[in-house]
């Protein structure tokens, strides 16, 4: 089976559910989430049977690649979406309160909160495969526009709407930069295919100014999606305001897809010595500044979701450091680990929010006594986010730092190591709240069976990857980041 059917299947599923909900509204919206999640699980299974060689060579293959990185990220996007749908099920009571007319099923509803993630998931899967800038732009926009709606979906809460508007305006700005940047890259090279760019750009000497100009605009747009300084500013507000499942989705899947695209896009430019000489210091400064802003900004936070936002900025800095180290297998591993630990943290936030009604750090006071198992999973997740040995997060950070050391980026290491150390402080703050602070009430905190399973899986993932990191490496097989089919390499027309 050709891999491009995967996305078609996901889109088909999403459209079917959308129509079904419009014409035969189900009383119990949970069903939609269940069907969606099981459909995605089937697609995830199909991921292991698709045959990249079966791509139609003339119609699809020039725009779409199914290299190991793309397949890995498709898997990541699918897993993240499945977990987000489950998280949404858990979060439904809060969602209902936040949406006009969702209390009575007839008028508006929460169904979109379960269907739009499917569209976004298809978009992210396409992003992972896109090897043409036009196609990349389209898939990125599919993701972004779905997220505009999702972020603002709790229409009764000003916070959600405000987050939606902020995301909308800054997102639209990044769209503008992306298009304008693609335009200039095209203008300088006459190409929109990444595989052609990968061949042509490293040796280019004319039109360098136009090419750099275009690539910087694209870099800015992608930096915005990834959350790199100085385009990170939307992240704390939007993460805090958006409904928790959407925040988790943004933090995990949207970032992962954007990181892959960033790595793919930058690779040819880093291979051109003339551009790289300017690009590498710029990326280094961005990475260092992102690390500082993320970690230091997190210090003063009291809201868990906002803390996670800064933590996600900090991780973006590490990821860019990994891209600079040119070890994309490691970057993929880092993202896999990041998905596990971040999703676990958001599950915990959602559970606590549902029963305590807040997502401040103080809502977690005494969690160790109210629900030791939940506290344990959160400790594992925080430990991994901070980078404690034997967790997945440690391997990621260790590898990135080692890569930077091997590449000789000493100033960056000098920034990254203290930044990581600062990270221990604020992740430990979470642990302190759970174990040492006195709770308001000592009632045991119930966790649904669904969330228990999800949390167990995510925690196990975090620990297993920490103990046996080569598991993921096997999935990625150290493939080159920009797949260059033999055919395109020959026919690439130089400007």
């Amino acid at each position, binding site marked *: 089976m050709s891999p491009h059917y995967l996305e078609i299947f996901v889109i088909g599923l999403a459209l079917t559910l959308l129509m079904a909900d419009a014409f035969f509204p189900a009383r119990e919206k949970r069903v939609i989430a269940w069907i969606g999640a099981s459909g995605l699980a089937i697609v995830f299974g199909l991921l292991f049977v698709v045959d990249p060689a079966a791509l139609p060579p003339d119609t699809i293959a020039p725009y779409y690649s199914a290299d190991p990185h793309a397949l890995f990220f498709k898997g990541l996007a699918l897993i993240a979406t499945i977990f987000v749908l489950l998280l949404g099920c858990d979060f439904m009571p809060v969602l209902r309160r936040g949406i006009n007319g969702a209390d009575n099923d007839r008028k508006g509803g929460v169904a979109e909160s379960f269907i739009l993630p499917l569209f976004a998931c298809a978009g992210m899967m396409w992003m992972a495969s896109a090897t043409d800038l036009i196609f990349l732009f389209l898939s990125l926009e599919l993701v972004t526009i779905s997220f505009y709606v999702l972020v603002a979906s709790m229409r009764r809460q000003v916070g959600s709407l405000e987050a939606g508007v902020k995301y909308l305006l*800054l997102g639209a700005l990044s769209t503008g930069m992306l298009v304008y940047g693609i335009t200039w890259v095209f203008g300088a090279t006459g190409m929109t295919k990444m595989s052609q760019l990968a061949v042509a750009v490293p040796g280019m000497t004319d039109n360098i100014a136009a090419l750099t100009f275009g690539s910087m605009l694209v870099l800015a747009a992608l930096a915005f999606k990834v959350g790199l300084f100085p*385009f990170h500013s939307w992240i704390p507000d939007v993460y805090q305001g958006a409904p928790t499942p959407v925040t988790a989705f943004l933090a995990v899947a949207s970032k992962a897809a954007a990181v892959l695209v960033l790595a793919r896009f930058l690779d040819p430019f880093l291979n051109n010595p003339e551009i790289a000489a300017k690009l590498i210091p*710029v990326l280094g400064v961005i990475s260092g500044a992102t690390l500082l802003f993320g970690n*230091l*900004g997190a*210090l003063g936070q009291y809201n868990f979701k906002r803390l996670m936002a800064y933590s996600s900025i900090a991780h973006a800095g590490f990821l860019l450091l990994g891209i600079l180290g040119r*070890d994309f*297998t*490691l970057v993929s591993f880092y993202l896999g680990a990041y998905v596990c630990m971040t999703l676990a943290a958001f599950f915990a936030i959602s559970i606590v929010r549902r029963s305590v009604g807040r997502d401040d750090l103080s809502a977690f006071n005494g969690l160790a006594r109210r629900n030791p198992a939940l506290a344990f999973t959160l400790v594992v997740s925080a430990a991994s986010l901070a980078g404690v040995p034997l967790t997945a997060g440690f391997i990621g950070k260790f*590898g990135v730092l080692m890569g930077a050391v091997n590449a000789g980026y000493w100033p960056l290491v000098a920034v990254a190591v203290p930044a990581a150390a600062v990270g221990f402080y604020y992740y430990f703050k979470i642990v302190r709240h759970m174990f040492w602070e006195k709770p308001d009430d000592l009632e045991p905190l119930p966790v649904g069976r669904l969330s228990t399973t999800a949390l167990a899986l995510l925690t196990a993932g975090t620990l297993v990857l920490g103990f046996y990191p080569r598991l993921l490496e096997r999935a990625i097989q150290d493939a080159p980041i920009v797949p260059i089919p033999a055919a395109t390499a020959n026919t690439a027309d130089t400007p």
Partner: protein
Amino acid sequence: MVQLPWLLLLLPLATAALIHFALGGSGRLAAWTGTASAFGMLGLSVSLLVGATAEASPFVWLETGMFHPDLEQAITLSLKTDRLALSMMLVVTIVGALVHLFSLTYMAEDKARPRYYAGLSLFLFSMTGIVLAGNLFMMFIFWELVGLSSYLLIGHWFTKKSAAEASKKAFLTNRIGDFGFLVGILLIWGAFGTVDFNALERRVDLGNLPLTGGLLTAGILCLFAGAVGKSAQFPLHVWLPDAMEGPTPVSALIHAATMVAAGVYMLVRISFLIALDPTAAMTIAWIGGGTALLAALLATQQDDIKRVLAYSTLSQLGYMVMAVGLLASQAAYFHLFTHAFFKALLFLGAGAVIYCCHHEQNIWKMGGLAKRMPLTFATFAIGTACLIAVPYVTSGFYSKEAILDSAYAASRPLFWIAAFVALLTAFYMTRLVVVAFLGKARSQYARDAVEAPTPMAFALTCLTLLSIVGGFRFFAEAILPRGFYPTFDSPHHNFVMAVSIICLLAGVVASFLLYRGREKDPLHITPLRRGLYIDDLYTGLIRLFQDGAAAVAAAFDRHILNGFFLGGTAALTQAVGSVFRRMQPGSLHFYLVLAALGIMLLIWATSTV
């Protein structure tokens, strides 16, 4: 294909997990599962020793420059299954299995048996890890794990305040040593580029070391610090006597036979490094000799049967460390091997006595037990004979002679110290036997005591046999690595033996005359009873340091931090945080300006014009 060494390592871990997660409700099932697994390990280690393939492929955990096979700086979990490791494994599993057996009765009444057996299995897992570790890094991981399981087991009766305190003290004291150990490992890693034992040994054989002089001494002594903590050498010896708060079978397994010997085992493993540096070696030897003397002195004035044995363990470990320092690591390891059996025997014997006297541990409240518990007495007496090295018939004699021989050859002062320790050993062990087993019963419990039940008696008998044959050439040579069994062919051997026999007789006779028929201790030397005030000194130092640090911190807080920020270290992070909060004012306008500036900066920074 299943590789036996990996199976041996993972079996106890699986058992611990099984007991902890699945058998939490049933003490009986947990007990039998744990015991079966321990005997399974014994079977595995015997089969490995008699010639099953001991091959174990390494497991690469983490590589620097991850995923790049060309960089050979991998952190590997590799097993080293040479004869040293396998013989040590045999000791660990024999004592482990017998202690499990003994616990079946000893812990039968305990309410938290699943926790106890899970702890024992976890301990066996970590100990196996230390023994089979192929590199220092892996050894360190299990070193920490062994500390953790020891903490859990000492504090098994954690509702008792003294037990909780003791477990904490053991854990914290070990941390100090472990910190040194870690620094040492990093030093070695930094200098040699590897921590693998085989690779290190090859590197040392090549000569032209990357680490010389004071730095080499420091590296070795840092590694030795780990052994000082784990094997309870002076000045970190204070945790071991307190660790006797744990259940007696635990004391037999962990705090007499195996875990505390791990420090010595590690020193034997790195003996090729110690041999490089005479200064470090001499320091190690003197610390060992000093500990042996100190502990033997303290043992003469203890009233608790387990504390006497604990100090004697310290003293014997001191012997071993001294031998390592005198570059006679073969003798040290041989003594470790024999000592494990007879010390486990003595502890289990003490356990049987305590069990039959309803948890009475004061020897002055016992007495006359020889008649009521003849088998226990016989085995205990044989154990004592081994410890005080009765010539020719006991294993302790051979191993102690080996150490004394090497001490005589290497350093006269240390030899005389060792001889004096032998005298003291004979003295305090005779005192223990005379007071506890002979004479009249001095309490109701002692009068009512009956013989130990069958599983206990069986375990004692097995260990008695091993204690005797453990030193004989036919037995020991079959198990120990080649060349580890002493030859006793040095010219001064007869002199050394004469000295040690005189010491033995002097100690036994003096003690017998002094303690026979006494109702209470005729000697009362307060400094020795109080452990030469070392504990008090530490408590005082800690308090002084804490108070001092608190005072300094408070002053710093009040006069410096408060002056600039608003109240203490918390304010510093708050201040940094609030700076960044102010950079995130929530204003969309600001975000747009920031993004626009960002784009312009990006373009400006990369523009070629």
